[in-house]
């Protein structure tokens, strides 16, 4: 049940993220959509690690059943990368706002190439 709930949440979040990234023109909202997409990926990683009735992967007794530790490590790394990317994106938005006076991508001259 829990797997299904998290799985569906994951898919819904991915949908929202991709839709937003394609449709939104506000730069901050684009960053938020990117964060939602990333959260979906992280949720997916945690879901991969999940095992029913398992404990956190700290060895106490040899008979314990643990969740997979590797995806957790991957998720941790991905969180760090995501945070740096978000910081970089927000910095760029501040700079774009200073130079263009707008944060709407359709108002930027060259956006469509």
């Amino acid at each position, binding site marked *: 049940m829990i797997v299904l709930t998290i799985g569906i949440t994951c898919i819904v979040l991915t949908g929202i993220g991709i839709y937003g*990234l394609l449709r939104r023109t506000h*730069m901050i909202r*684009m960053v938020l959509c*990117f964060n939602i*997409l*990333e959260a979906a*990926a992280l949720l*997916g*990683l945690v879901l*991969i690690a999940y095992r029913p009735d398992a404990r956190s992967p700290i060895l106490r007794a040899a008979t314990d059943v643990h969740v997979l530790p*590797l*995806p957790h490590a*991957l998720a941790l*790394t*991905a969180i760090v*990368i995501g945070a*740096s*990317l978000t910081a*970089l*994106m927000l910095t*760029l*938005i501040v*700079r*774009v706002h200073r*130079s*263009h006076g707008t944060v709407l991508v359709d108002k*930027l001259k*060259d*956006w469509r*190439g």
Partner: protein
Amino acid sequence: MNSLLTELPVLLIVIPLAGVPLLYFTTRSGRGTALPALAVILVVVTLLSFSIRDAMHAPVVTAAGGWQPDLGIGLQFDLLAVAAMLVTSLIVAQAILSHDETSGAQHFRTLLMLLYAGSNGLMLTQDLFNAYVFIEITSIASYALVASRQDKGGFESAFKYVVMGSFAGLLVLWGIAGLYLTTGTLDMQSLAPRFDAAQGAVPALSAAAIIAGLLIKLGQVPFHAWKADSLSGASYTVSALLSGVTTTAFFVLLLRVLSALPSLTLSLAPVLTTIASLSIITGHLMALRQPRYSRLLAYSSVAHIGYGLLAVSSGAVTAIAAGLFHILVHAIMKSSLFFLGRSFLHTGNRSDRLEAIVFPEQYRKLHVTLYVLLAMSMIGIPPVLGFTSKWYAVLETARAGYHTGAVLIALGGAVALVYYLRVGIQLVHPGLPELSSPGPASRRLPVPLAGTALILLLAVFSDRLLAFCVQAVVQLLEAV
């Protein structure tokens, strides 16, 4: 020496990475010299050249931290890595020399070194998640480099680049998660049997997501437009880095992923061929109608990476080697063309519209000669290296049975002739009178002299270079 050899792959990443804080602190006070950065590259190249012989014998595989690859991270130093890293080191060294300290770009060398460290890691790693980390290190450094021009266009291009690049990065992350879920491993060398044994559509979809992410990073159709937008917003030096270093690194990683999954590569071959063919056609046709120098070069890159991908997707060893060879040659010549663009700025002209570009008075003949040689190489006119690499690509693609692809590569040269000729005529006979207030005159020789000289000299040894690439590909395929 032996213990140094086993630690070599780690050193090749750690040395440039250690250079990052070093350069940050030495250049923080304003002007720094280029020497520390050049020294780092010199150390890396020396290590590389001392270990080519060992890599020829067998790939050097290091288990980072003593954990064997299935549990830990494996780094593989093979001929593919040697060839690609020698090319990227040359380009990074040229970029350091080309960097203009008065441009206001802060921490340029620091970011450059981060890009170098990331791309080295990308070309050495055997572990998929480790590859993701290096993809992001390389990408974050390149996003910041695009913005380092500190003007309107730079920030806008950087934001566009960051959105597209992070989306591609997330696709790769999804793919890695899916592959781990179904195969239980992240090590590329032990992936193939477990991938083939895995049931359902998830493993194939996940691997496809990784490949798609890398193709977006390489700027292949239908995700090609961002490449021109980012390259035209960045400074010439940064554009040279993006089209030389990051492209080579991502292509090497793509080769590693494709060779790690032979069964999938076989079934994906028609898709890859279609993407490559469309990229060749789109790239050349779009380049034809670009009004600006950097956008023209960016679209030409889309087509040239298409050549490489087309040769690789045919699956024959010699064709893959020819594709790799062309990508490496393309990295040198395209970055040299971008470095050459920097000289336009010395006339005081900030625009790179084709009707406005003109070389400065000083060394004008030398500049024009360099342009002609590089353009000949890009188009594929003998006797330069670009001709031989393209010739091998056409020949080997045709031998592998992809006759349409071979014709496409050959025809691409004809279209390229038109747009490079257009730029050439403008450079020889500038239409506009020179500006009255020229920019800072440069007493230095043009930077791409090194790249162009290599393209001329190495043309003599092109059969040996191809043989080297064949050996690299054989090593890559045998390792799996």
